[in-house]
């Protein structure tokens, strides 16, 4: 019988100890203050983004050589929230964090963030320079928890070539659900004998930011105004009618089914399979890099309206954490990220619209697609996630509800009633 030698045991132990020893120890900081900054989105392979980050950090070092920045990029929006919450529990939170409107309430309502309003007053920061409805997303009354970075309203992208081919005029900002439905019908191409249309009017996604504006436009909502109840709202007649309208686009084959979209693998709007899609400013980056669609063939228009004109705005800003050990340095950095210098450079990347009105207007004057986004801003409201701490669960249930309707064939009224019954215990737990 072969016995393991002492050297085998020693090798095992050595491997373990080497593993433990390599790289242990805390990072050492140079002289001065080091502030820890977290944002979500991870690294970027985009050379423009890398250049942007290098440029602003070089500029920051020039302005504040004694304040060093340790920047942590955290992949994935859900993981970002989880990691930040854990860090707050453990007291290892960053000094400055990127605050996304879709999850802002979790951090604001739990006292994780510093009220920046007194600092803004003290340093005469001109809060009037920002879009008021964007600034309001990170505020609670007179308290302000972040300075705006960039944002986007959800708008309709359309493929100009497909509109021209169908001899349709381009949609205008005052278009209605009826106009939208007519355009979807005219843009859907279903050759005789084919199993499916070869072209669809619209790309229907089971992504709540894409379909919640339909509910709002119809006068409905998913939660009560105080965000504490779903029953009576998500299952209201107005909401049911909106979901029925949205699901009808798939059921009438004016939009591909969810499985057809999944099977595409690529964006069906970019591929030319769908003539319209609801999305945000960030999509311009992908379209610019796309081999299948030219940016000049893309048009942008406000969402079609029904009983009211409304859309949702997604925004991200920079917040200072409540218990930072370097509040002044953190505040300086949050101001810097929100400053025209950084905002002009960030806006040039095309990811979002600057929260600073002057910067956004200046960019709109030289870029043909920007004005359509800006025209949609006044009708933009904050996502529920900016106001309700547990909204992530509501979104999960909402997504399952729409899946039951679009894939399972469940009636919207039944699916929404079930969703209400599931959401209320979550909100009141």
């Amino acid at each position, binding site marked *: 019988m072969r016995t393991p030698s002492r050297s085998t045991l020693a090798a095992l132990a050595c491997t*373990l100890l*080497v593993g433990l020893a390599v790289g242990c120890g*805390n990072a050492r900081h140079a002289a001065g203050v080091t502030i820890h900054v977290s944002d979500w989105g991870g690294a970027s*392979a985009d050379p423009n983004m890398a250049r942007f980050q290098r440029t602003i950090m070089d500029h920051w070092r020039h302005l504040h050589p004694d304040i060093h920045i340790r920047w942590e990029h955290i992949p994935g929006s859900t993981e970002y929230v989880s990691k930040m919450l854990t860090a707050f529990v453990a007291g290892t939170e960053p000094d400055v964090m990127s605050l996304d409107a879709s999850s802002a309430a979790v951090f604001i309502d739990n006292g994780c963030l510093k009220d920046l309003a007194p600092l803004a007053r003290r340093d005469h920061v001109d809060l009037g320079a920002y879009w008021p409805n964007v600034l309001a997303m990170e505020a609670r009354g007179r308290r302000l928890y972040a300075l705006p970075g960039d944002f986007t309203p959800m708008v309709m992208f359309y493929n100009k070539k497909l509109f021209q081919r169908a001899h349709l005029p381009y949609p205008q900002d005052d278009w209605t659900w009826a106009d939208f439905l007519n355009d979807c019908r005219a843009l859907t191409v279903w050759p005789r004998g084919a199993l499916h249309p070869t072209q669809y009017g619209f790309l229907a996604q089971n992504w709540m930011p894409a379909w919640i504006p339909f509910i709002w436009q119809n006068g409905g909502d998913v939660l009560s105004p105080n965000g504490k109840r779903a029953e009576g709202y998500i299952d209201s007649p107005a909401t049911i009618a909106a979901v029925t309208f949205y699901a009808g686009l798939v059921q009438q084959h004016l939009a591909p089914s969810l499985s057809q979209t999944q099977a595409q693998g690529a964006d069906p709007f970019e591929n030319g399979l769908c003539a319209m899609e609801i999305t945000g400013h960030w999509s311009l980056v992908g379209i610019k890099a796309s081999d299948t669609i030219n940016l000049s063939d893309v048009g942008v228009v406000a969402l079609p309206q029904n009983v009211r004109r409304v859309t949702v705005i997604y925004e991200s800003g920079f917040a200072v954490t409540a218990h930072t050990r370097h509040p002044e340095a953190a505040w300086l950095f949050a101001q810097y990220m929100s400053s025209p210098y950084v905002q002009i450079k960030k806006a040039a990347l095309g990811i979002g619209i600057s929260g600073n009105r002057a910067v956004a207007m200046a960019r709109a004057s030289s870029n043909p697609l920007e004005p359509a986004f800006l025209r949609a801003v006044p009708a933009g409201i904050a996502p529920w996630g900016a106001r309700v701490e547990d909204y992530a669960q509501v979104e999960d249930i909402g997504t399952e509800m729409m899946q039951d309707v679009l894939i399972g064939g469940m009636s919207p009224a039944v699916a929404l009633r079930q969703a209400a019954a599931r959401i209320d215990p979550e909100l009141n737990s």
Partner: protein
Amino acid sequence: MRRVSPASAIGSYVLMVVAAAAAMTPFVWMVLVSLHPSHGALPDPAHLLPKHLQFANYSQVLHMDATPFLRFLMNTLIVAVSVVCGQLLICAPAAFAFARLSFRGRDWLFYLFVASMMIPGQVTMIPAFLVVRSFGWLNTYWALIVPAISSAFGIFLLRQFFLTLPRELDEAACLDGCSPWATFWRIAAPLSSPALATLSVFAFIATWTDFFWPLLVTSTTGMRTLEVGLSLFKDAFGSTNWPLQMAAAVLVLLPVLLVFLAAQRFFVRGIALTGLKG
């Protein structure tokens, strides 16, 4: 002995080949997409076979400045190998003690270990994070290795195996003057290679594929592991470059596959002997 008819043998082979092909399809698809030209959309099944094999995708993934894959690979190897070694060194003697030594409260202690397997990881994550932070281990290999170094599952698995070894071996060793440690080290451990290999593969795969814990305890790109790196990579490319994403996914998966193939013989035997097959 009952003879298997040729028809039934052929039938079972056909069934197994079909099942194996179905299981392999996602992996084959992933490899084929990874060899398509960069920046391409997902190919439809009719054009899955690339016209020209783009092995350059792999080299591109390995040499990205924003996502240093070789660094992620080194970190993951250090962590995975350390955890495997740690689990072997800690779980095997503990399991032997539970299987062979008589001491007061042994069974209750063992049940406590087994019960701890039922506590979801999410429940222990924050306390573990607080402990790691209090030691000043955040963003170090210590945080990635130490919490995983012992495993109730590993102790359970090895104990079940040690129970199958004949007691006569212990008694003979005792008559020859072996201490319990010597009995473990000279008799039980050498006979346990299938179970030890099984535990190694389980520990290696669990560590290799762990995402959230490394995300929580590391904060710099240089300390990230492959799974977190893959997520960073996905964020960097969005859905615009499937061939590169698939190349990255293949690179992450390959070492696990190699470990499994190398230990497959022991792994299957270990599962059969420890009663894990159910």
